[in-house]
């Protein structure tokens, strides 16, 4: 079980959180014309990297904030966590 540092609450056990996928995905702007390919890339396609991955977690059983986690998908090492409007330090 991972130990994740919520940027609002501090270190908590993984079972307080839910995973939210790739944090680098940007939703297309509302109202923009968008090709089927771009839309499919947004909705369906995700990279599955081995190594460093920037991802979203939601502190569902805590402060209910979404935030960013930089994690190694192979070793589970967490390099950094930050609020949505911040950038990772490492």
């Amino acid at each position, binding site marked *: 079980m991972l*130990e994740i540092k919520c940027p609002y609450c501090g270190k908590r056990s993984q079972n307080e959180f839910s995973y939210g996928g790739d944090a680098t995905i940007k939703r297309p702007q509302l109202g923009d014309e968008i090709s089927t390919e771009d839309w499919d890339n947004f909705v369906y396609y995700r990279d599955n990297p081995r190594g460093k991955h920037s991802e979203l977690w939601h502190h569902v059983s805590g402060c209910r904030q979404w935030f960013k986690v930089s994690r190694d998908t192979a070793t589970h090492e967490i390099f950094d966590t930050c609020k949505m409007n911040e950038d990772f330090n490492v």
Partner: protein
Amino acid sequence: MSNSFRTTNSTGLINKDKKINFTFNGTIYHGYEGDTLASALIANGVHLVGRSFKYHRPRGFLGVGVEEPNAMVQLHDGNKSEPNIIATEVELVEGLKAKSQNCWPSVQFDIGEINNVLNRFFPAGFYYKTFMWPKSFWMKIYEPFIRKAAGMGKAPLLPDPDRYEHNYEHCDVLVVGSGPSGLASALAAAKNGARVILAEDKPNFGGSLLTDEVTIGNMSGKEWASDTISQLKSMPNVILKKRSQVFGYYDHNMTVMIERVSDHIENPSKYTPRQRLHYIRAGEVIVSTGSIERPISFGNNDRPGIVLASAAKEYMKVYETLVGKKPIIFTNNDTAYSTALEFIKNDIEPIIVDTRDSSNGELVKEVQQKGISIKFNSGIADTKGHLKINSAIIGKLDSSKESFISEETVECDCICMSGGWTPTVHLSSQAGNKLKFNDDIDAFVPDKKRQKETAIGAANGSFTLNQSLAEGFQVGFDLSNKFTDQNNPTNSPNSNEPSYEKHEKLWCMPLPSGKKPKRFIDFQNDVAVSDVELAIREGFRSIEHVKRYTTLGMAGDQGKTSNLNGLQYVSKIEKKIVPEVGHTTFRPPYTPVTIGAIVGREVGNHYLPTRKSPIHTWHEENNAVFVAAGLWQRPRYYPRGSEDMNSAVNREAANVRKNVGICDVTTLGKIDIKGPDAPEFLNRVYTNAWLKLPVGKARYGLMLREDGMVFDDGTTSRLSENHFHMTTTTAQAANVLSHLEYYLQVVWPDLDVNVLSTTEQWSGIAVAGPKSRDLLSKLFPDVDMSNEGLPFMGLVDSSIDSIKARIYRISFSGELAYEVNVESNYGLYIWKKIMEEGQSFDIQPYGTEALSTLRIEMGHVAGAELDGRTIPFDVGLNSMVSQKKDFIGKRSLSKDAFTESDRQTIVGLVPLDKKTKIPEGSHIIEDNSAVAPIPKLGHVSSSCWSVEYNNPFSIAIIKDGKNKIGKNLYAVSPLKDISIPVEVVSSHYVDPEGTRVRS
């Protein structure tokens, strides 16, 4: 039989003043306080404890602790019965009952032993080869046969009566194992101010110090251990746990430890848990788990009475018990000589067989000085004795040590063997440590760590006491200093121990001349040298493949005594060095763990939390039958007298259509939405328009996922300019909240909106039926309940008995209906009030079944239709989709597959006979006489008995639904052999114009 194998000394850890009676295979024995089941049986001369897995060979004890592969027993009976327990780990307790497993009819005479005679038919990979064909035989013939023959223990069929607890701990330094290095590191870390947990599997701290003749400072090893423990006990920053096995090492330094709290207590308090599972998140983990002695493979090396030399020594020193009185010590190294010396101390002269040409080790010399001659350059070729060893064939090895020059038969009643030592690296390996091979000790040791884990002492391959203590004190200090910065090191005391000469790289004896007895490597899975040879002959090369083909190391003991010998043998045949062969990965649990301990207190009603509406007690008092809706308990129906479910549901639903019904809808999800951008936010979240919703009005809304599938629906109302009250379905309440939070926090943080769940703050009561207006007018005389005063989708605030209430004119049943919301605490009061006033209007409560009936008849979609596979078009809600604005998921709706006109869409179904109810989940097909595979048009999502038309009615989602209306199709359920001719009708079966809700 009365403890005739006890020694006369009393230097061990048992209390001969306290007798303990126990039963093994029906015979009553006694042992003493401090005994294990194993030591007590051995003291009574009992070595035969089980039958082997494959060949049903008689087996006895090999070890003295967790390494034991043979002595697995079934403990207790009835609901406390527990299979596959290692007898060496069971502390004796008054009245303990144990029996052998994997034997029938008895351990002495076992029918399955025929497998041993037929063993040439049971080679490695036997199951793979024999039971492959024909395929249909597998389930019916082979599998049951193998299961019966394999046997092992029997899982109890009754619920576990014992109590298990879970505990969460945090510490700076967790020390696993309390041998010399573990104690040293715990002491150093604790003295340096760190919060320390020291875990020891056995009932006594000290590890090898309890059995080794050494001195530390001016104390014996045993005294130093007990002195160190008292020091640790007095420190407030230390938790000492004995009978506690750290069996799992998971990510981020999460370890799991099982503590045997009351297994050893005769009559524990009923409030004492049997076992406790500790989740320990440790800053640093020190793995001081010691090492396990290696057996040697030789002919028939599995007979009862053949034990590890270290085990024999521990039985003598700790349990004051002799494994035999005519021992042979068989070794490739010096350490077994301490076992020889222990026998000599008890006036028994062992025969010593050493594979080496010579040794000048201190212990060897000491033995020789006592006048014992040693058979160097010799090995054991074979043994005899059916249920217990009675003689050994000792052979003189030739210079290559590949064969015996001469053989002699020697009587004995036990063999104490030692093939050297294997560091216990399981936890380090579980932690992701890449092991490396250490040539000096011919074993793997931890190397590149992935987590905050440090192996020390024997677990790290440091086999001398001096080294172990030095590592312990140094590592304990270094690691603790990361947390405390106190810089307070503890010096390692001087220690004294005998010097040892090197072991010989020889773990498998040649076969005796003219015979081919089995030479076992893995005792628990019955894997012999010949099986490994066969696997390699048949082309298996990777050690992972050899392991799976032979099942070497795959038994419950995870190869604690067999892995390395197996690797060694493969490397010998393949002429590769061991690190090239590689090793298999260790996984948790290190030792078997009772399922009950893993489950903990999460049993029965504690399995999941139960959510009850504030009106729950009324439902109970009024004979409600409940149904689980997620965590909620909801009234399903309220039977009267001898009514069955169908008649109760029909009565309740019909009463709503005719008079008025009342339904507890507290469970609906409710979300409070506030902020200047709230209208814009709702406009993006819902498919329909929200900007112009007037204050005091509600609107039905439909939410999609980005992939275009319907996510949820519900009614949301505008309470003031920037304040909305959203409702969700009961099932999706939590997911909708997370969804909204995601868009507000991640996607559109510029929107100034706050959302908050208010599900538990409101109690909701639906009042539905043609008489609902009259009833509510009476309850709320101040409110104009007319169609003009409170129109459909309107809402108004009022009160009853000064309790604030909000009344919505909304309907799920399709009838004229209202929903009264009050603060949760008043829910029950208001419910009773409505029931009371409602008597004169023939009010009846209705449950979820009638609720479903009412919505199905009306063609209102719910969870069964909104199953994550339907877009608005499919469920007849295209009119809800705004063409003018963008919203979540809109772009997906214009994808090719979503715009095809013949998509599966919602319809109604009525059976032609107007009698047969159509099972939910039935397939819809055109031609029921067609040959399979028959094209499937769709499926039945919801079914009910229409109270309006008094015949069955279903909602289905079928291909090109709209154009199928009026056609006859078949609803089939092949598994139930049901085929029902149906007519396709509109899904809006009752009041398709929706006049009633607006009346």
